[in-house]
Structure formats: C-alpha cells, structure tokens
C-alpha cells in the first residue's frame, strides 16, 4: 500500500534517534545507579536495569505498533481514549494501591501501572481534538470553559490520588493555549503569580522586596530610557526607604528591615503611580501597578501561609517545595543530590565509579534522581550533553508541530513538547536545587515501565501524525 510506504519514508528519524539515545543513556545510568558487584548480568531480572530492558523492549514494540496505526484512529478515538483514562483515574481511587503515599497504581501480580502517566497523552489528544474543532475560538467563554474542564478533570482526579507532582504537569498546557491564541498577558500573569507564590514561600520578605524593587527599576529603565524620569522615580524610592529607615531608628519602633522595606516600597510605589498617572506615562503606570500588586500578593501569601494555615498544612507545602533549610530533614535529599552532581567535576568519576548514588546517599537514584548519576559519573560533560539533547528534542518538536497542516497535529505536537518540557524543567531543576522537590520522572531516563511507555506513546503518536502530515485528515 503506497500510503504505508509513505509513513516509513516520512518518519522524522532525527526525533526517533534522539528518543533512542535518551532511552539508551537512561538505561546505562539506571544500571550504574543500582550496580553492585554481586549482580552484574545486565539481564538480571531481580534488578531494576534488568527489568528496564523489558520495559524498553516493550516500549519499542509499542512505538512500532503506533506507527502502524491509521492516523485517523487518534482523531476519531481521542475523546473515547480520554473518557477511558478519566474512568481509570476514578477507578484507581477505589481499587488502586498506594505506593509512596500516592494512591495511583493498579497492581496486577508483579506488574504495576499508573493511569495518571497515560492520562497526559489522553488529555493531549482530547485538547488537540477540541481546539482544532470547527468553531473553536479561545477568546470565546464557552471554548475556554471546555478547555478548563478537559485539563482540570484529570488534574483534580490525580490530586485526589495524592500525586501532586503528576497533577502539576497539566499546568504546562497553558503554553499550548498561548500558542493557540491565549493572550500573552494571561501567560505573563500566570507565570508571575506562580513565581511569586513559590518565591514568597521560599525566600524571606527581605529578599522578595529587594528582588521586586530591582525588577521594577529594571522595567522602568527598559520601558522608558529617559534619564530624567528614571532618576525622579529612583529618588522617590530611595527617599521613601531612607525616610522610613531613619524614622524607625528615631522612634525606636524596632521594625525589622524587611518590614521597613515593605512599607516604604508600597508608599514609594503609590507615589510613583500617582506621579505616572499625572504625567500620563502609560508604561510606568503598568509597571507601578504590577509592582504594587506583586508586593501585596507576596506579603499576603506569606501572611496567609504563616497565620492562616494549620501547621500540618504548612509542613505539607514546605515538604512540597523542599523548603526546610534543615539539611538533615526535608532539605537532605536536595543537598545530597547537589553533592552527587557537584562532585562529578568536568569529566565525572567514571562509569560505575559513582559513590554517592551507589551507596544510596541520593534517594530514588534510579527514578526521580537519575540525573544525579549522570552528574556524578559523567561530570559536566554528561549533564551538558543530556540538557542539550533534551533541548534539541524539544525545539525539534516545536518545529515539527509548526510544519503540520492540520490543527489537530500541531496542537497535539505542542502538548507533547510542553509535557516533556515540564518534566525536564522540574526534574532536573529539582536535582540541582532550582526547583522544589516534586517527584516526577525525567522522560525516557527514569526507571519505570509506566512512565517510559506513556512518554513513548506520547511521542510516537506525534511522530506518526507528523509522518502522515501530507494526507488529508478527516478533520
């Protein structure tokens, strides 16, 4: 059949190669992370690297089968696949098994499967189907509500399983929405609010205020390079801060420096706002408003966290964000992870020579913290390579998406890219201390059948769509 030939010819072998490289690198690092002198056979099925060989073989078969399936299948069955996964997510709440605190597993004999892993792919399909449908317009209220329902239905179900990490992945779809026409302002504020929320909890008020002040000054400088106005605005802030600082000293009110900074920032921001309104500097008004909003938001997050939440809720959030600075408590994992990576140097300690990962100083070293093994045994050369490979894959996916003729394929391609991106960002960010400790796997790398298969399905469906992009789709 000519069409089938077409598919094989048009496959993007570059993406497939990147996939195979990441899977291969993942496996040799899993081998290293559980390697011990007693178990050396790579087919030892009692060991994770032995099992991973089975998962990989199965994944390759799955990928092959996906390429054989008719393109229209995904379009027609996208809602049904989504419906089945939603059903499974509900079912797992009742008959699932709890592992590591998350009730997200179906266990059949020796075999465990996590529906939440596959829900990402199903949600991507449903989203692509809906957003490429006739009459969809993101600015329309009804369209937006439907999208929110499609995305939040699995998110809430996964949250109910107590698997916060997997649930957060769905927020990455905002990038897809942005690509499909969501206002940049929404994206900006979504990012701003997320960052402010996390940073307000992570850092002290003092640091927050300093960062916000610097950001605002930077924004003023960029938006209106007229030195005179800039100097006036800078002076307002400096005078305001100095005034309150001196007042605090004279009146001996003993407010902390952070509190002085907060009050003077708000007053200074308000004065600048008034000044900008009077002078009708539109850009300045926006910056001043955003600045004031950010200050008030972070103060209230901090206040709400410290005064309105029960201690066990605080602990839960702290744990999620990996905040506690106690290196023996919640911060222990990140600290050990940084030690493992940092001790790798330029070229690493050599394959199988890692000590931090091998002797279990790093937790979950074959799953969530697999990147530590790369860092320790292959050094900066290895981590650089892996980061670049991922970037390469992500950017390739964006380009592939953009060359699609159908909206369905393009949107689906973007969901693949942003899901992989979110995992990449959070997982590696967590191991080097830039992200809170949220236990989600590094795509293709981390040990585990469910995650490998789900990422394989996610990617290969898109490869298939891309390979047959020249055909007329039903939609």
């Amino acid at each position, binding site marked *: 059949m000519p069409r089938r030939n077409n598919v094989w010819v048009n496959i993007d072998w570059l993406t497939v190669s990147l996939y195979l490289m990441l899977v291969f690198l993942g496996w040799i690092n899993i081998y290293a992370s559980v390697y011990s002198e007693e178990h050396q056979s790579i087919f030892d099925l009692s060991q994770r690297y032995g099992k991973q060989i089975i998962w990989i073989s199965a994944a390759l078969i799955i990928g092959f089968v996906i390429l054989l399936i008719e393109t229209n299948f995904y379009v027609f069955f996208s809602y049904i696949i989504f419906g089945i996964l939603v059903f499974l997510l509900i079912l797992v709440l009742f008959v699932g098994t709890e592992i590591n605190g998350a009730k997200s597993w179906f266990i059949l004999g020796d075999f465990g499967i996590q529906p939440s892993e596959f829900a990402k792919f199903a949600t991507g399909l449903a989203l692509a189907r809906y957003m490429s449908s006739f009459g969809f317009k993101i600015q329309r209220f009804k369209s937006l509500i439907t999208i929110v329902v499609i995305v939040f239905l699995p998110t809430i179900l996964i949250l109910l399983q107590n698997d916060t990490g997997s649930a957060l992945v769905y927020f990455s779809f905002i990038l897809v929405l942005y690509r499909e026409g969501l206002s940049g302002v929404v994206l900006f504020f979504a990012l701003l609010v997320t960052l402010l929320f996390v940073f307000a909890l992570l850092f002290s008020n003092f640091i927050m205020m300093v960062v916000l002040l610097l950001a605002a000054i930077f924004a003023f400088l960029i938006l209106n390079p007229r030195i005179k106005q800039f100097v006036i605005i800078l002076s307002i802030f400096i005078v305001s801060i100095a005034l309150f600082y001196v007042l605090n000293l004279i009146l001996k009110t003993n407010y902390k420096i952070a509190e002085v900074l907060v009050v003077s920032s708000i007053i200074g921001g308000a004065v600048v706002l008034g000044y900008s309104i009077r002078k009708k500097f539109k850009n300045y008004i926006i910056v001043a408003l955003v600045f004031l909003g950010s200050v008030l938001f972070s103060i209230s997050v901090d206040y709400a966290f410290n005064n309105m939440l029960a201690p066990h809720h605080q602990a839960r959030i702290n744990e999620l964000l990996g905040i506690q600075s106690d290196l023996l408590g919640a911060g222990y994992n990140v600290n050990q992870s940084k030690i493992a990576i940092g001790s790798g140097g330029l070229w690493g300690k050599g394959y199988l020579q890692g000590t931090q990962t091998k002797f279990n100083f790093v937790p979950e070293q074959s799953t969530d913290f697999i990147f530590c093994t790369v860092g320790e045994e292959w050094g900066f050369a290895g981590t650089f390579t892996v980061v670049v490979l*991922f970037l390469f894959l992500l950017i390739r996916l964006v380009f592939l998406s953009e060359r699609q003729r159908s909206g369905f394929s393009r949107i689906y391609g973007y969901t693949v890219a942003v899901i992989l991106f979110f995992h990449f960002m959070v997982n590696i960010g967590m191991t080097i201390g830039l992200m809170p400790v949220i236990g989600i796997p590094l795509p293709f790398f981390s040990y585990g059948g469910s995650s490998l298969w789900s990422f394989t399905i996610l990617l290969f469906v898109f490869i298939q769509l891309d390979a047959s992009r020249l055909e007329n789709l039903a939609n």
Partner: protein
Amino acid sequence: MNTYSKRKYVIIGIFATIGLVFIIKLFGLQLLDPSFKQFATNNVLREVVQYPARGLVYDRNNKLLVFNKAAYDLMIIPREVLDFDTTYLCRLLEISKEELETGIKSAKEYSRYKPSILVKQISPESYATLQEQLYKFKGFHTQSRTLREYSNKAAAHVLGYVGEVGVNEIKNDEYYKIGDYIGISGIDKAYETQLRGNKGVKKYFVDVHNRIQGSYKNGLDDIPAKTGKNVTSTIDIELQQYAEKLFQNKKGSVVAIEPSTGEILAMVSAPSYDPGLMVRRVRGSNYSKLLSDTLKPLFNRSLLAEYPPGSTYKVLNILIGLQEQVISINTHFSCAGPESVPIRCTHYHGSPVEVIGAIRESCNPFLWNTFRSILRKYESIADGYNVWREYALSFGVGQKLGSDFTNENKGSLPLESYYNRIYGGGHWNALTVRSLAIGQGELGVTPLQMANYCAIIANRGYYYIPHIVKEIENEQIDQSFKTKNYGKISAEYYEPVIRGMEMALDPGGSAEMSRIPDIAMCGKTGTAQNPQGSAHSIFMAFAPKENPRIALSVYVENGVWGSRYAAPIASLIVEKYLTDTISPNRKWLENVMIKANLLNSFQPE
C-alpha cells in the same frame, strides 16, 4: 496557517532559557564549587583507626613482664540507633541505666553521625556474650583495643601504667586523639614512643546507613598499624619480687644497680600496689583509692623521696678529704665519744682513729675534723664550700642523674648563696654547716642517687647513668647510658674507704649482723633523723668487694638504726642476687625482716 505562528519563538525562548539556566547552574555546581567533592568524600569515607598492640616488656632474663590483652570498646553512632531494650543492654554491659543514658547523651553532643565510645574496655568474656546479641542493637558496634596485663604483681612503679591521654597531650602532640592510650608512668611512659607503635588507618566506603561497603581504593591509601617495639628491662624480676617481699608492711625503698653497666637490677618503693589494678574499667576507682591512701602507694620513693644520706655520706667526705690532701691514710683524729664537740660520737671505740677505723666506726669527730679541713683549705670558707660541693655534684648528688625515668627528683645540695642568704655573706663557717660533715642538715638524696653513689665507690671512681631499659627492639638505647662518668676522686683513694666499708660488716663492725658468709660485702650504715617519727634506717653496700656485681641503697622508714633493718635487708638482697639463695644460718634473719611491721611511724629505740 496560523496567525499566532510567531509565538513559537516565545516558547522556544522559554525552553532555551530554562536549558541555559540549567547549564549555568551545572557549570557552577560541577566546575566552580570544589566543596561538593569534599562533601562527597566525607559522605562515603569512614576512617577506622587501627590500634597497634603496645610493645612487650621483658626482664633482664627475658621473662615476660608486661603484655597485652584484648579489650573492646562499645561504640555508638547516635543517628543509627533505633529503639532498643535498655535494661537488657545494661545487663550485658554491667552498667547502670543512668550511666548508659549519660553516655548516649554525651555521644549525641559530640556527633550524631560519627562513632563515639560509649563503654570502654569491655573484657573479652563480656564481649563474647555482647557480640552475639549486638544485632539487636542498631547503631552500636565494637572496636578492639589492647590493654596492659602484668605477669606478676611486682615492680608496679618500674613498669608504670597506661591510661587515656589527657587534654594537654592531645594539644601538644597531634599523634594523640581523644580516647587514645598513653604511658602515664614508669617504663610505659619513659619509652612511650617506642612501645606505642604507630596507629594505622583503614579507609572504607560506607553507604548512607554508615554500613561498610568495601575498602577504599582497594586499601591503597590504608596505613597499617605498626606494633610497638618490645623492650627488655634491666630489672631482675625475681630479685625485685624478693626485695618487695622483704619490704612488706614497711615504708621505704631499695635501688640496686649493676655497677659495671648502670643497669638497675631492682627498684622497690614500698608500699606498692598491684599493677593489675590500673587497667580496665576498675582503674578509675582503684586509682582514687590508691591516691587517697595515707601510705602513698602511688608515690615512687626510689626516684622522688628525698632523705638525708646520714652516715653513708661520710665515705664521700673522707674521699674528698683524701683527694684534697687535707687528710691522708695515716691521719689520726681523737674521739671523745659522746663528749666530743661540736658533734658527739654515737659509737664507743678506741681513740684516735684513722680513715679505715673512722668509716668502720662511723666516727663523727673524725668527719668533723676532715670536713673543717676541707673548707678551711681555701681562702674563704665559701671557696672551700664550693670545692666540696663540686665533688658532691660529680657523684650525682644534688642533680638529676638523667636516667630514663621521666620523673627524677634532683635532691638537695645547697648553693653557697643559700647560706649567704640565711647567715649573710662571710658570716658562716664550717661550724655553721657542720651537719653536712655527717650527711645531715640541708642534704637530701634520693635512693636512686644513693645507689649510684655507692656504684661509683664500687667502681672506684666512675659510673654509668642508671637506667631501667637495656634493649629496645631494632633500636639502640640512649648513648648516654653507655658513657662512663667520673667522680672527681682518683682511684687510689678508694681502697682505704672500701676497706673500712668491708670492716663495717666484720665482727665488731657497725653492721656485723648483716655479714654474708663467703661474700665480701662492703657497706655503710646510716640514720636519718625524722621529725615525724622514728629515724629512718639507711644502708648502702656493694658486693663482692672485687669486681662488684651489685651496688644498692636501702632506706627503711622508721627503721631507727641503719644496722637494724636496712643493712640486713640489703644483705639478704645481695645474697639472693649473688648466690640465688639464702644460706640456712641466715633464714632466721630473713624471717625477722619479712615479718617486721614498721607501718607505725613510731618504733621502739
């Protein structure tokens, strides 16, 4: 196509920014900050100190005196401790619950990750049962140490003991770490560097639970412990035991030297203690018990006690007189017995007497005349005194001898300035310091000094610095122990005084009771006045007269007269050493000496 197509650049920009941030952060972590490498090493490396066995100590006849026995410390790593049955552990360790709790608390204060010693020096017997049960107690492990064992109860002061290092030693010598053992007295202190060997270290990989995972670099970096060197003492343990037996229920000291080498054959400080009391966990309580004992068993009299030499010193004064030629072998001085002035004579004998007679009879007036002549020979009394003092110094009086013991007392031999301070310069003369003529007054010598002084007489003029160790494994002993030191008296002057000392043991001599059949022993009795009780009994002697093999000093506190206890005890020690037995007709004397109890400071005259 799509109107928002350009937005792909924003998205690629976000991807690239995150990637760039990661690369920058990784660059910083992996290439700029070296501390992680250090942390990583600290994480996985456990250095286990390998304690070497201390060197053994033998006596001069290669009898083993001090050896090692295994003991075990129970270690704790607080972080790894899980709930356990405290009562059961206390029972296994034979300690109270409070001790265990305070031990765990201080271990936690030291470090939650590093091992610290919880219970020290568990005996091999308790260890056997403990080791079987230890799997029940997570976070505990044992380390093996060696403790001193003593093959017999004698020679405690000579052998010394070993204990934990103090704060100062740790500060001054980086070899020592807290919990290490160090020689605290005796041979174990004097030869600490040779006996201790060198600690080694074994490096292991440990996992996050501090469980050993294998050796680090295949043991390439390990330093094996080096066993301490064995040491052969100069002590004759049988002689030592015999001397200690003679000294039971007495206070005092014996130092016996082989004159031809300076080797110390026996060194008794009575009362003594069982050296076995100073090891294991009981050491602490035993130590404080011994410390508070009013008889001061821990005090090494042989090296530290300072007694007036009494009449034994007369031999030296006569030698000085001969050397200075203020008297000759034919010089006679008359003696008026107890009526003599300025020093009365304590013996009744014919008058006048010459050198030999004066020594035999210990005649005070003879000594007074001699002493006065020495001091008057020079322009001023002070000059004469300084000449006299130089002779004494050359005999090892008034200064540390430089033996291998680390805690010698230098005794006392006043400087001229001392008398000037008391009486004023030029305002004192021979009469003022006349007590020196008969070994009293400001003079103080240790038993070791006196034995050495006697050895000089035995050698007719020279000595080797007394020492307690004759051989060290693969090492030379201090060269100073092989160098002759000369007293400032010509050899020719010794014969008459030695003849006098020999005659002191003849019938009618001052120590005739102590005569040994068939052995020519030369001796001199002495008595040291004691304001706290009865006078001390002193005797110094050497034998045989020709080619002497033993020279010794004996002090018996509150022994009243030199001839009453010190001389018989000395004679028994000499006889034992030279003939290996006590002749039947002296058994009664041995019995009397052993049975005598002189612990009461006041004895009948």
